């Protein structure tokens, strides 16, 4: 059971990656937001269970997104790897240990990610791309963080720890 629970973080991030490329039809306006959702997953799980959220998972999910969105291969992979590293740095700060602190940390990281994404994409396209739509979706991702954090918490291993413990004791 413990091994099954260990894959929960990777499973959530992979799920959000696939959700980002599904044809949602009328909700097409959310197209720009969807690739930012795996960032929430990567940040949350790196903060809470870094041992089950290795940087390789973030890289692979980024590569899948790059391949499926016809973006330049390596763009999302690079951004997700940066998010993972930034989350690890955030984790080490004592002042960001509270719930609000985590949220604040995520806002800071999203700002870095959005800037990096815009800069790399602009250099890649050799044009100054519009940053405002991306900033808007970044802000939306920050607002959505508590919702997704709640879902992850409900589906996360902490909820099942007593069950696992009792099963192990029983064995």
């Amino acid at each position: 059971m413990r091994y099954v629970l260990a894959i929960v973080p990777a499973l959530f991030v992979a799920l959000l990656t696939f959700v980002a490329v599904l044809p949602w039809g009328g909700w097409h306006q959310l197209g720009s937001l969807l690739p930012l959702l795996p960032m929430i997953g990567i940040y949350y799980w790196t903060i809470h269970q870094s041992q089950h959220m290795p940087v390789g998972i973030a890289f692979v999910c980024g590569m899948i997104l790059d391949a499926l969105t016809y973006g330049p291969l390596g763009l999302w992979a690079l951004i997700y790897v940066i998010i993972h590293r930034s989350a690890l740095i955030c984790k080490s700060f004592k002042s960001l240990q509270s719930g609000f602190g985590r949220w604040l940390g995520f806002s800071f990281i999203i700002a870095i990610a959005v800037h990096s994404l815009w800069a790399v994409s602009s250099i890649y396209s050799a044009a100054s791309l519009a940053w405002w739509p991306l900033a808007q979706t970044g802000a939306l991702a920050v607002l959505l963080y508590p919702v997704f954090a709640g879902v992850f918490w409900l589906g996360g291993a902490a909820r099942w720890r007593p069950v696992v413990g009792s099963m192990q004791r029983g064995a």
Partner: protein
Amino acid sequence: MTFLRDDTFSRRGEAHGAHRRNSSGIMFFVLCFISLALLVLSKLDHVIVHMLRTHIVELAAPVLNKANGPILNLRRIGRQLTTYVKLNEELQRLKSENRILLDQQWRAKMLQRRLARLGKMVRVVKDRELDFITARVIGDASGPFARAALVRAGTVHGVQRGFPVFNNGGLIGRIVEAGPSTSRLLLLSDLNSRVPVSVGGQGKRALMLGDNSAAPRLGYLPHGTRARQGEDVYTSGVGGLFPQGLRIGKVSTRGGKAHVDLSARFDNLDFVTVLFYLSPNLVHRSGFAAISSASLPIHETNMQNKKNTKNTKDMKINTPAN
């Protein structure tokens, strides 16, 4: 706010602390390097990038296909709800549209007859009928800087790079990568999309430039001409990228700049039609057999393929490099 705080699961991993941090740091730099290297290779349009992308898409396609079932149901419910809400308004719109269409149908029939008569008089060579297939969209591959979609049809179904794609609204884009069972469709609104178009009844030549917005810009109009609000925009066929006369949309002017309101709705792509029309530019590089097989009806295509086996082999070798 409990869920925003630290999770207490499995503290055992923390025991490895220093070692894990070190290896994680090395991995970070290695993966950053790989990502940057891939970015450079993507910019160079390297064949490795194409191969890697095609393999990933082929692996992910079954997952996307399975996940599409519930999504389609959700979208159907959403559409039905929208229809119910706007039922009366929609009915009035359809009635008035129907009156206009009946009138247009009559005029079209008259023009068709006149055209047939004139064609006979000057012995016009008839255009060859193009073959097509209809396939489901399994992935909406749109990000902040890309507008693309994944189509569940690939080279095994005859789809090739460069084929135009449309739905009942009009042209929506073209195939930019074709794997064995899936293809990638670059939408007209994508930043990299450039389509030679004709504007209005005079057929003013212009270029439609995708800018990731819902209404691409209209540029490179001939000096001294300008596009007027409401004028029709359709493919000009210049450069051979698309066949001539495919409907795209109408001109809309915003802030003195001409944009194109696309006829096709990109937010509701269920099924799309892939037209077996290969750009002559690609054909010249890959052998004559390609254009013949792309533009002939199926029975003629099969016969020609048997005759030109050698040329077809050449085409397969050359296509990825194009």
